[in-house]
C-alpha cells in the first residue's frame, strides 16, 4: 500500500521533467525545425518574379538547384572561405599551444597569467562588425596603420583593400586575434588535466622542454586539438561578419586568375547565402546551399562527438 503511494507520487513528480522541457522543444520546433523543413522544401523549387503574375512564384525544379550548386563557382566560394580560415587558424593554433603550455607549466610560474589570459580573451567578446570596421578604418587611407606604412615609404595612394593578398590576410588576422585567446583557454584546461607526475618523471629522465611537449603534452592533447580544429572549421565555414563589413558586402577585390569565375576573392559562402536570401530572393539556390552546409557541418559534428565520447570512456 505504502509502496504504491510512493511509486505513484514518484511518477507524478517525474512528469515535471517533461513539462520543463516544453518551452525548449516548442521553441526548437517553431524556430529551428520548421525553418529547416522549409529550407529543404525551397531547395527543390525555383523562386522568381513572374512578369505575368506581378509577384514571386514558386515552380517545382527537382534537383536543378543542387546541380547548379556543384559548379566551380561554389567551389570558389568555399576556396575563399577556407583560405581565409587557414591563414587565421595556423597562427591561432601555434600561439594557443605555446601559450597554453606556458600557462600550465608549474616550473615556469608565469606571473600575471590571469591578466594575460584576460587580455588575450577580450577580442573574442567584441562585436565582430565593429572589430572589422575598426580594422578597415585603421588600414584604409588616412588610417593610423596606413600612416605608419607611409612613413616607411608606402605610396599614400596605395589601398590595401584593392589587393587580394592584403584583404584576405587582414580578414584572417582579425579572425586570429578574435579566437586565439579562446583556444588558449580550451587547450589549457586540457593540459591542466595531464597528471603532473608524468612531467616529473620526464624531468627525472632528463627530457628537454621540447621533448616533453612533443612526447607528452601533444599526444595527450590530441582529442582536444581535434575538437578545437573541427569546431574552428565549423566556425570558419560560417565566416561572415568580418569579410562582410571589410569588403562592404562585395567580397571585392576581384581575382584576376582564370579560376575566379567572377567570384570576388574575399566573398565567403555565408555572404553568398545572405545575398540569396535577403537581396536576390533566390530561395532555390539559398535552400540548396543551406542543405549542403547542413551536411558538411553534420559530418564534422559527428566526428567531434565520436572523439568526445571516446575521451569520456
Amino acid at each position, binding site marked *: 500500500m505504502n509502496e504504491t503511494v510512493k511509486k505513484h507520487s514518484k511518477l507524478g513528480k517525474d512528469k515535471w521533467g517533461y513539462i520543463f522541457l516544453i518551452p525548449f522543444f516548442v*521553441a526548437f520546433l517553431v524556430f529551428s525545425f520548421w525553418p529547416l523543413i522549409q529550407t529543404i522544401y525551397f531547395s527543390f523549387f525555383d523562386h522568381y518574379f513572374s512578369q505575368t503574375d506581378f509577384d514571386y512564384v514558386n515552380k517545382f525544379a527537382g534537383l536543378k538547384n543542387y546541380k547548379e550548386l556543384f559548379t566551380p563557382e561554389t567551389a570558389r566560394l568555399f576556396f575563399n572561405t577556407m583560405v581565409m580560415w587557414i591563414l587565421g587558424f595556423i597562427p591561432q593554433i601555434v600561439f594557443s599551444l605555446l601559450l597554453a603550455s606556458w600557462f600550465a607549466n608549474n616550473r615556469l610560474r608565469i606571473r600575471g597569467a590571469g591578466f*594575460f589570459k584576460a587580455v588575450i580573451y577580450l577580442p573574442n567578446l567584441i562585436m565582430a562588425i565593429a572589430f572589422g570596421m575598426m580594422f578597415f578604418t585603421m588600414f584604409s587611407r588616412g588610417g593610423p596603420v596606413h600612416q605608419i606604412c607611409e612613413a616607411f615609404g608606402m605610396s599614400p595612394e596605395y589601398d590595401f583593400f584593392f589587393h587580394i593578398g592584403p584583404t584576405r590576410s587582414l580578414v584572417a588576422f582579425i579572425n586570429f586575434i578574435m579566437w586565439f585567446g579562446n583556444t588558449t583557454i580550451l587547450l589549457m584546461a586540457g593540459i591542466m588535466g595531464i597528471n603532473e607526475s608524468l612531467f616529473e618523471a620526464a624531468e627525472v629522465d632528463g627530457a628537454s622542454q621540447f621533448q616533453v611537449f612533443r612526447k607528452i603534452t601533444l599526444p595527450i592533447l590530441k582529442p582536444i586539438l581535434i575538437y578545437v580544429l573541427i569546431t574552428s572549421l565549423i566556425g570558419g565555414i560560417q565566416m*561572415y561578419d568580418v569579410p562582410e563589413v571589410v569588403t562592404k558586402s562585395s567580397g571585392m577585390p576581384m581575382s584576376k586568375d582564370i579560376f575566379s569565375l567572377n567570384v570576388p576573392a574575399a566573398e565567403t559562402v555565408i555572404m553568398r547565402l545572405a545575398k540569396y536570401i535577403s537581396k536576390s530572393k533566390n530561395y532555390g539556390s539559398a535552400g540548396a546551399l543551406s542543405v549542403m552546409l547542413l551536411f558538411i557541418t553534420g559530418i564534422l559534428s559527428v566526428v567531434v562527438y565520436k572523439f568526445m565520447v571516446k575521451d569520456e570512456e
Partner: protein
Amino acid sequence: MAEKTKLDANYTVKKSMGMGTIRVIAYVVLVLLSLMCLIWFYLLFINATRAHSEITARISFVPGDNLIDNLKKLFTSTLDFPRGILNSAFVAFASSILTVYFSMMTAFAVHAYNFKGKKAVHVFILAIMMIPTQVTSLGFYRLVVDTLNLKDSFIPLIVPSIMSPITYFYIVQYMKSNLPMSLIEAARIDGCMEISILNRIVFPLMKPALAVQLIFAFVASWNNYYMPAMILSSSKKRTLPILIYTLRSATEKDKDFGFQYVAMALSVLPVIVVYVFFARKIVGGVSVGGVKE
C-alpha cells in the same frame, strides 16, 4: 661519487638556464601578443577624441580635445545612435534573460527527473548545438516575414532565445557538481511545488553560473548582425551592429573619422566595461564544460 655530484650540478645548471631562457621568451611573446590585442582599442579610443582633420593628418598616441564635438555629432546624426543603443540594449537584455531562465529550466528537467528518453533528450540537445543558425536562416526568414508577419520586429530576435543548447550544456554541467538532489528532496518533503523548487531553491543556488551565462548571452545578442540585418528594415529599429555597418558606406567626401571612431568606441565600450569587472569569472566560464575533462 664526486663525479656524480658534478654531473648533477651540471645538469641542474643546464636545466635552470633552459628554463630561464624560456621564461624570457614567454614574457616577450606574452607582452607582444597582449599589445597586439589592445593597441587597436587604444587607437580607437584616442581617435574618438580627435577631429577628422587631426586624424587624417598624422597618427597620435595622446588624446585630443574633440571628444565632446564627436559625441555631439553622433547624438544629432540622422543615424540616430541613441535609438540604436536602446534597441540593442532592449533586445540583448530580453533575449539573454530568456536564454538563461529557460536553459536553467531545461537543464533542471534533465538533471533532476527520471523519465523515459532523458538520455536521448540530452544527446539530442548536444547534437543540435553544432548546427549553425545560418543553415536554417532561409526558413526562419520566410517564417518571420511571410507566416508570422513579423518583419521589422524585435520578437523574432528575442523569443527564439528560449532555445540555447550551448547555455543548457554549461548549466547542466554546473548542476552536476553544484546541485545536490538531497536539497530538492528536502524541499519536496516540505511540500514545495516543483515549479517553486526551480524558482526558489535551484535559481538562487545557480546564480554564479547563471550570471556568467547571462553575460555570454547578452554579448552574443549585442554583437549579432546576421539575423537582425535581414529582419530589421526601418531606421527606427536598427541595432548597433547594423548602424556600425552603415559607417562602411560613407563616401570619401562625407567621411568623418572622428564620428566613426566615437561610434565604434561607444558600441564596444559597454562590453569592455563589463569585462573589466568580471574578466576572471568570464574567462573561467569559457573552459567549464567546454570540453569534457
